[in-house]
């Protein structure tokens, strides 16, 4: 008989009227990796929060290694050997690795710290799993991939043999993700069991032993992954219908330059250089993908290109007009649409209703206002049209935007930015955090805008997305343009540039940088 590290039976969790988990069965075999797959809102996180003791289930039982266990709190979960690696790291940045791991733990030397002992233990663990973590490195000095390994190390050090990883690759380059996967495989062979929460199908196919698919709070299917398992099959189970993967965009001949940057320099909020001598050109009817790991100057670049952040030097051309350091209104009038990275603070007025959010950039113009008076009838009619055109799920045009799901919030932004056929579109991480259905929708809309002639700069950390949509692929690292690659470049090639290897340089993969 097979042994299960975790067995969740008939778990039901209700929030208000919503059944977030509806009689879900979940089994994690010992020494295996189980991929928990589902769209946003499918109940993956809820299920794992029940397992980790953050929520109490209304019904159902949990067995850990065959023992019925009542997980009342995360403390209890940890003592039962369950560890969780969060998507957003919970590390104190100024402290060292070993100090972070010691936080909240009793020292074996009473009132004195046992730093040296713990450090030695960490080094031993790190070596065993090839984590390559230096116990005395400070967190802020580490790359995102290394920080994640510190999180993993912390849970193992606490004695976890069941690990929950929440979207672990969301912040990693393909190379870093591959490193992570080999670590996970090694840990599995060493006797650990892991749950991988994800909505990336490639991960399921490459690293996972079993897959469990949730949809609308219900367990849809659970099976062993075989070489015959396909992406199409998984997505159909997850979404409940066929999903388009290959957009295969018809090639459009690019026209004249709409957006140009020449030796552009921009500073970040701390006043440090974020974008250095950046030159790039985007033409009518073209999508230029800008790939890069988060925090390499993408946000600052997008803000400079929309007038939200001053350019310290260099030039910006919008429709052939010099535009650096012009106010945001200039860019709006020139038809520069912007899908910002920070949807909730910049892209939307969360306390406004949907109909108002759809016109926040044009509220002074007819037909939404005349002679300084708003025309709410026209605004409402416009909203009704947009809700239909962009399939925004909301009860009324007057629903508060905060109450919409993330995907629908993004559709509100999309509707506003694309409604007037922009000449330039700066799309910064347009599908981050969206589920498969919404992602597909956003991407198809971007392609549609391109075929209508928009010059699109698609900024994304998702290589798959870049490859799928871009006519040319630029890569940014540390605020600098690393190179421009043609359509159809390999993920590995892009990934190397994303890690700071210039085009043409010797490309020995150097991890642990």
């Amino acid at each position, binding site marked *: 008989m097979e042994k299960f590290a975790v067995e969740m039976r008939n778990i039901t969790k209700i929030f208000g009227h919503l059944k977030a988990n509806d009689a879900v069965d979940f089994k994690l075999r010992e020494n295996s990796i189980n991929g928990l797959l589902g769209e946003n809102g499918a109940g993956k996180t809820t299920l794992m929060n029940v397992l980790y003791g953050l929520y109490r289930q209304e019904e159902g039982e949990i067995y850990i290694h065959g023992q019925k266990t009542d997980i009342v709190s995360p403390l209890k979960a940890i003592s039962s050997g369950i560890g969780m690696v969060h998507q957003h790291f919970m590390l104190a940045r100024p402290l060292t690795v070993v100090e972070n791991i010691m936080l909240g733990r009793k020292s074996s030397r009473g009132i004195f710290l046992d730093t040296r002992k713990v450090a030695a233990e960490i080094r031993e663990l790190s070596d065993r799993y090839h984590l390559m973590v230096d116990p005395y490195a400070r967190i802020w000095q580490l790359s995102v991939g290394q920080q994640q390994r510190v999180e993993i190390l912390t849970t193992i050090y606490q004695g976890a043999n069941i690990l929950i990883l929440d979207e672990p690759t969301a912040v990693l380059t393909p190379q870093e993700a591959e490193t992570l996967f080999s670590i996970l495989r090694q840990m599995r062979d060493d006797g650990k069991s892991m749950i991988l929460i994800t909505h990336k199908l490639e991960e399921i196919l490459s690293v996972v032993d079993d897959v469990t698919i949730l949809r609308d709070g219900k367990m849809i299917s659970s099976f062993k992954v075989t070489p015959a398992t396909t992406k199409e099959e998984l997505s159909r189970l997850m979404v409940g219908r066929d999903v388009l993967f290959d957009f295969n965009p018809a090639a459009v001949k690019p026209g004249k330059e709409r957006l140009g940057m020449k030796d552009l320099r921009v500073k970040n909020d701390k006043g440090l250089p974020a974008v250095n001598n950046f030159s790039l050109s985007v033409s009518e009817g073209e999508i230029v993908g800008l790939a890069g790991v988060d925090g390499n100057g993408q946000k600052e670049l997008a803000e400079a290109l929309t007038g939200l952040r001053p350019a310290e030097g260099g030039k910006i051309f919008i429709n052939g007009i010099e535009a650096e350091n012009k106010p945001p209104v200039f860019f709006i009038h020139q038809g520069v649409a912007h899908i910002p990275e920070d949807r909730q*603070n910049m892209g939307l007025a969360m306390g406004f209703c949907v109909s108002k959010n759809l016109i926040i950039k044009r509220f002074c113009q007819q037909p939404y206002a005349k002679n300084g008076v708003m025309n709410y009838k026209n605004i409402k009619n416009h909203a009704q049209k947009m809700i239909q055109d962009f399939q925004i799920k909301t009860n009324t045009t007057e629903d508060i935007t905060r109450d919409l799901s993330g995907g629908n919030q993004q559709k509100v932004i999309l509707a506003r930015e694309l409604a007037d056929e922009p000449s330039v579109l700066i799309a910064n991480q347009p599908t981050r955090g969206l589920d498969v259905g919404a992602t597909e929708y956003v991407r198809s809309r971007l392609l549609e805008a391109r075929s209508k002639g928009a010059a699109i700069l698609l900024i994304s950390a998702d290589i798959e997305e870049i490859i799928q949509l871009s006519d040319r692929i630029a890569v940014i690292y540390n605020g600098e343009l690393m190179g421009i690659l043609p359509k159809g470049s390999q993920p590995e090639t892009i990934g190397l540039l994303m890690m700071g290897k210039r085009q043409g340089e010797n490309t020995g993969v150097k991890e642990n940088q």
Partner: protein
Amino acid sequence: MVSGALLTGAILIIISGNDPIAAYAALLEGAFSNSYRISETFVKAIPLMLMALGVSIAFKNQIWNIGAGGQFTIGTILSVIVCLYFKLPPIPTIILSFIFAFIGGALWGGLAGWLKARFNANEVITTLMLDYIATYLLAYLVYGPMMDPNGFGYPQSAVIEKVLRLPKLIVGGRLHTGIFVAIAILFLMLLFWRSTLGFKIELAGQGNDVSRYAGIDNKKIIVITMLLSGGLSGIAGWNEIHGIHFRLMTDLAGSYGSIAIVIALLGNLNPLGIAISAYFFSVLIVGGNTMQNLTGIPYSLVDIIQGLIVVFVITRTAFRTESIQTFFRKRRYQHNG
């Protein structure tokens, strides 16, 4: 919220050994038992509503203007100056007095707005400080240069001429035609929130990032917001001078500034809501005095009820905002995990 506050107030009355029903009955009697008292409830409601409408403009833009009292005071000072020293015919004097009161209040508020826009100075501090400055400026004027020469040394200015006073609406009461000005401004405010400028202010209140993104000049809007916010309190000052006091005295603003904040919040920053809650507070204040005389329950109960309403209002807004909810969730999370 109001009922919550009144209920809690009732419990306090019981604890103090009195009968809450008798107390509230006395309060209502004090507010409504004769035409003078009824007229008083409107008299008090006028400045409270105008000032609450004023602070509500700032609040919509997330600017915490707590100095409505100071803006009111500057309005009263300028009104009296125009009336006493500008030797003009009556109608131009009243109009000029109105304009000066508005501009004076607007500049007093706008100064705090400019300090915020230019130096990122916290408006809670600046409006509070400007409030003190206005109060002491008024005290200086009535003890010094503007003291009534025939006033036997009382700290007050000369009275404005009879023709400059707003006509009374009822015999034996203090209710005056200023109430029509207040109602007109209430209507203007309803229209204001349907204007593009009102939209801009509301959008700016949704956060710096989103309003900049939508092409709004945040600094300019902060100043405009505070100009309008202070201006309405200035008009409240004009109303009190021409309708009630006819002269400057020390501490004309009293605690109006802080009550206006409560009214604006209780009215949910909505003009009609503000009008209703201003009247409600006016009833509490007018009736509270009678309650103290009739039942011996101290007037402080009214203050306590006011305070309780603040607590209930803040609790409501706090738990509606996501940030607080996530804050508590995170706290629990980090505590355990």
